[in-house]
């Protein structure tokens, strides 16, 4: 009976977190919209320059900066998760929270750290994308959609396949924009997600994850 109650509670927690975070998203977006208005704002301070030429492509300086910073952050996140004590604790809580409590790991503290690090990375992503394209209160939604798709097709088990998934998604979206129309970019992202959920539900990494299996 005890275990039944506990599993029931855990099961409910499954969607509760996501729904509450959607609520938080709505509140934050509207706070920003109240504070800064709905119009599109420009983040960059320097005038637009031609950028560097690689073959036939022009790459702006801010885009080069984005590539460097995100590669660095990805590498350090991998290092954090695989080499440090905190990283081990985060992965431990992800795979078996009950066992972690037995081993003296403070579950809530670790979850707090994970959320803090994740939010920091998300904020960096927001700033970097703001450098490239301009910002408005609703700009986060598209980033969110794309990153969720990348997370699932990259495989939720580990993070090493994520860059591969991100490049794959970006290529697919821009191929669609080139051959069809830019307006279908969001739909293409989700079509890819659906295809993955049907034929490759474990993502590119192929690791098992309890929520997708049933």
């Amino acid at each position: 009976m005890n275990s039944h109650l506990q599993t029931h509670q855990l099961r409910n927690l499954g969607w509760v977190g996501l729904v509450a975070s959607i609520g938080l998203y709505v509140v934050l977006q509207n706070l920003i919209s109240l504070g800064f208005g709905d119009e599109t704002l420009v983040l960059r301070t320097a005038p637009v320059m031609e950028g560097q030429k690689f073959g036939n492509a022009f790459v702006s300086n801010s885009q080069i900066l984005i590539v460097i910073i995100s590669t660095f952050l990805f590498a350090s996140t991998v290092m954090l998760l695989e080499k440090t004590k905190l990283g081990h604790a985060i992965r431990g809580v992800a795979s078996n929270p009950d066992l972690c409590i037995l081993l003296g790991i403070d579950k809530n503290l670790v979850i707090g750290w994970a959320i803090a690090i994740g939010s920091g990375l998300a904020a960096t992503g927001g700033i970097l994308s703001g450098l490239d394209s301009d910002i408005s209160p609703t700009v986060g939604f598209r980033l969110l959609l794309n990153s969720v798709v990348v997370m699932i097709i990259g495989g939720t088990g580990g993070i090493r396949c994520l860059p591969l998934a991100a490049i794959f998604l970006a290529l697919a979206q821009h191929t669609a924009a080139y051959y069809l129309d830019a307006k279908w970019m969001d739909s293409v992202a989700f079509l890819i997600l659906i295809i993955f959920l049907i034929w490759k539900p474990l993502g590119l990494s192929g690791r098992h994850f309890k929520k997708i299996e049933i």
Partner: protein
Amino acid sequence: MDYLLHLIVFVLIYGMVALSLNVASGFTQLISLAQAGFFWVGAYTSAILATQYGWPLWVNLPLGMLVAGVVALPVALVALRTVEDYFIICTMGMGVILFSVMNNWMELTRGPMGIPGIPSVSLFGHPLTEKWEWVLLAGCFYALVFWVAHNFKRSALGRILVGISEDEIFCQSLGKNVGLAKLQSFVLGAMLAAVPGALYAHYVSYIDPTSFTIHESIFVLSIIIVGGMGNLWGSLVAAAFMILVPEALRFVGLPSGIAANVRQMLYGAALILVIWLQQTKGRVAVNNLLEKQAKI
């Protein structure tokens, strides 16, 4: 007075959408964010048939339900392969795809320009122009949808769904076809969402894609979470609360530019608050039970 009746029509329409979401996800606890999409399918089917062919609501509404059901079937087949968070994300993706289709398929839906001039409903040759007549009409449909949802909850299928929300694998081990039950409830929920959609199109007489974004799905979700998942009367009370409170803010003298933001913040905050209260209350209840068990 007309303003108040107008608000009542809206409460009834959103109450119906909340009921349909309750059928689709309230009993199984599989939260769908595609409901505004099916609401849209009902509204657009009805609007297109009414403006292009001049058909009345009585023909458009069943056809809208049919189209919504046909659209929902593949959506459900794909989305139901996942559970919990992934189900929410997957249905959110379906909602985005449906929105893109209606926003970009210019030939059929006229895209962002919307469909104007949808005729009002006429009953026995008498066109419904007064607000109170619309309240009666929406009330009748609300009662009908409520009756369907109520009986659905008590039916054999409804009991399987409640079983799924408690323990899916145990339910399966009793020989219940869990997948089929989830599929049926999802499709039925989508078909019911088309009813308020058709009414909305004929009532407002102009529809455009911006009334059916993902925010609309979140709004309906917050209605059923505030009203209690699977609680049918709660949906109506919560719909009234969520629609009337932001309207009341108008009389406080908020400028209309801010009012829209405040309305959205209100339902976002309600979502967080209710979940927080439920979680703490649930945890206290579980702890009390565990203590009682320990004493025995």
